[in-house]
């Protein structure tokens, strides 16, 4: 089938690749655009390991063709912080043991990032509901929830201090 040029802005940088229509966003990101943070877990949109942010939405990139994302702005875990300046969520996941094997972590943090954009001051229940599209097999979620709540508090404190 005809390959087409897929143009995406990934973590602030424009990238262009050739892809068949059937190529899924997850594989294009991982194998053609160098973003290996998001992972393939279940392939049927249940586990959320492939979660990336697209134009202000958390999406499961295993259940979307790259062609659908044409022209979109994509943020993956690689776009959230730098080694010298980690994102508050990344810091808090480290601080509160919010990860073990690390496989769900990029999707989980990327999802939490969007959640806090939309609800900067969530309750524990809202965090649990908000990350229910991301499965973790290792942590039992308790420390993930703790990490996200702590990150939210930190972000809010920083916002207040800035005002």
């Amino acid at each position, binding site marked *: 089938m005809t390959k087409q040029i897929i143009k995406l802005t990934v973590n602030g940088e424009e990238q262009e690749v050739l892809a068949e229509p059937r190529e899924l966003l997850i594989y294009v990101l991982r194998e053609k655009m160098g973003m290996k943070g998001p992972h393939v877990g279940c392939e049927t949109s249940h586990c959320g390991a492939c979660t990336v942010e697209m134009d202000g939405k958390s999406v499961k990139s295993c259940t979307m063709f790259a062609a659908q994302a044409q022209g979109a702005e994509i943020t993956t875990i690689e776009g959230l912080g730098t080694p010298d300046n980690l994102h508050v969520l990344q810091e808090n996941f480290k601080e509160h043991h919010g990860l073990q094997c*690390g496989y769900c972590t990029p999707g989980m943090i990327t999802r939490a990032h969007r959640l806090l954009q939309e609800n900067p001051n969530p309750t524990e229940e809202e965090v649990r509901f908000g990350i*229910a599209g991301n499965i973790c097999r290792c942590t039992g979620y308790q420390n993930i929830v703790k990490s996200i709540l702590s990150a939210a508090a930190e972000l809010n404190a920083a916002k207040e201090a800035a005002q």
Partner: protein
Amino acid sequence: MKDEVTRDDRVANLKGLGCSRKRVEDARFTQGKGNYVDDMNLPGMLTGDFVRSPYAHARITSINTDAAMALDGVIAVLTAKDLEPLGLHWMPTLAGDKQMVLADGKVLFQGQEVAFVVAKDRYIASDAVELVEVEYEELPVIVDPFASMKSDVVLREDLDPTAPGAHGPRKHHNHIFTWEVGDEDGTNAVIDDADIVAEESMYYHRTHPCPLEPCGCVASMDKVNGKLTLWGTFQAPHVVRTVASLLSGIEEHNIRVVSPDIGGGFGNKVGVYPGYVCSIVASIVTGVPVKWVEDRMENLMSTAFARDYWMTGKISATKEGKITGLHCHVTADHGAFDACADPTKFPAGFMNICTGSYDIPIAYLGVDGVYTNKAPGGVSYRCSFRVTEAVYFIERMIEVLAIEMNMDSAELRRINFIKKEQFPYNSALGWEYDSGDYHTAWDKALKAVDYEGLRKEQAERVEAFKRGETRTIMGIGLSFFTEIVGAGPVKNCDILGMGMFDSCEIRIHPTGSAIARLGTISQGQGHATTFAQILASEIGISADSITIEEGDTDTAPYGLGTYGSRSTPVAGAAAAMVGRKIRAKAQMIAAYLLEVHDDDVEFDVDRFVVKGAPERFKTMGEIAYAAYNQAIPGIEPGLEAVSYYDPPNMTYPFGAYVCVMDIDVDTGVPTIKRFYALDDCGTRINPMVIEGQIHGGLTEALAVALGQEIAYDDMGNCKTGTLMDFFLPTAWEVPNYETDHTVTPSPHHPIGAKGVGESPHVGGVPCFSNAVQDAFRPFGNRHTNMPHDHWRIWKTANDLGLHD
């Protein structure tokens, strides 16, 4: 004023044993820079993909690969015929059986590997799979092990029906083994004469470890140098190397096996799968790297399952509730091939820990393994070998006995616990429990949850229910478990003949930092963090200055890998022992530098000091430097050591769990109101990591108890092949857990540690299950099988007349 560095500061700087050191792994994982097998992309790499059987039992009448081969970009389509000349169409299993790599004449379970397509990319491979034409002639399907033992249908035509199997005589052509432990006649005699006898049959359903990352590998045969490199999801990379060498004939030094980061294992990644063998063959044939990564459906339908034990028990007691005997029989459904991952001499793993935490004078265990048309496996899913089954069995038998005696099961446990002064305790089924203080743990747990208060509340709720004021009832789930982990002593534990020791090697660098390598492999447990803590306390170098490496067989010392909670008990012990070797040499160097006799210096946190003159010392940094730059008479330069540790015994972690649950009898929906977990894993290396392990293990226990199941229909179709139907709970379904602990060190482990990763799963499953069953006890419930999903809970309520 000069800042005084106190001894406490020096201890803190080590980040050694007992502190909640933050994990060193997390920097890469939180930034998406982990390196999992599917992240590998080598130049020219091909993709492998399987044609799988849609049938559970069928004869293959033809395989036509022409159309697939004609597809542009398809390099090869392998079938059993292609592997046969290499002797690789079958492979040995870890359980002494053999398994088809690719279907040889027939298929024995749905999803079985039939042909392996090798193509330029995943898209072409996937198209080619559709083009391989396989003709099947359906055969009668057997999914029930009891039916299998009576059936004329021969599942394994490759086996001589009269010849013994790997574990002795076989009773029937679909029978695999009988394994017996204990004194059956003596046990029966005790039970026949007993005041009280409780009997129960229970099914521990088939489930699956389902790590979030599926299984996969990249095989790369370098024909120029004759070296094969295999990267993959291996919980035991060294064993994989040995197996690969034995199967392929490539000398072991020419094979390098690497486990990169692994996205969870839970037992699923212990075994060797057809995908690995096919990838190796394909790479040898093509001379380029070949990647195979299964999808989730393939993972659930074809790689190793767990449990599937039909257990029947008889337990006897005196009128006062003192248990006098225990009889257990298991019919074990092993599926199409016996691919259990147990130590060779234990075909039912450590199921003979089924006397639990109780002083039971006489017992018997018999296990019959049986073939059916289901996927092979039988691995230990987040537990030591079959310990989950054993603990579930005894913790249900205790409840059933309590019902029989009309007594409180917490008290029944207390009466029968092995007493502190009985350790080391020799169980009726042959284990020597190393240490324990069960009464203290139990009392602490019951007090923490206000057990009496809970029972009072439950009784009030029962009355309210009977008066029609509420439609929810309350269950109090109890479990007290004793694990048996850290396999194991080479004298009785081996896998494919390899003794189950483990290892640690360390090199101290001249400037006082170090690298240590071990024979284990982390799949999320945080070894790079915690092993460094053990070493830090032993050698006085900060954990932050110690790199830990595992999983590369070219560099790491041989070890049996990570499963069965064996990393801390075995490799962790090796780490402590290797540290002691370093310290012994460092002591001699320090004495030389301080110009005193070896015996006149002593180790203190991070230095050797002259006894009685603490102002005279050499730090480990100074000693390391001297090891490399000074000629010291009688001492070799350098500072490194290796230790292979053969544990003298298993370790026996234990714990006390309480679950409080509400059940909506009308819908069958359970709600966990509270979960308290007290764990005793001996010496605690990193409390933060321990708690994380407990949260995770409890959540996997919740899943198994409340719905996670691999189910088949009568035709052998797997009904639970995606995450819609295979229950992995989300954050929404999971409660917060309260964790607590006691510390009873292992007397034989160098630092007294016992292992913890699997305890919460082992103890958690019966606790959740007991909560469901306890809620119905006041209404006449005795036992119902897991998984307690909504409809089964509803059915219990319905059967008890609660909907009338």
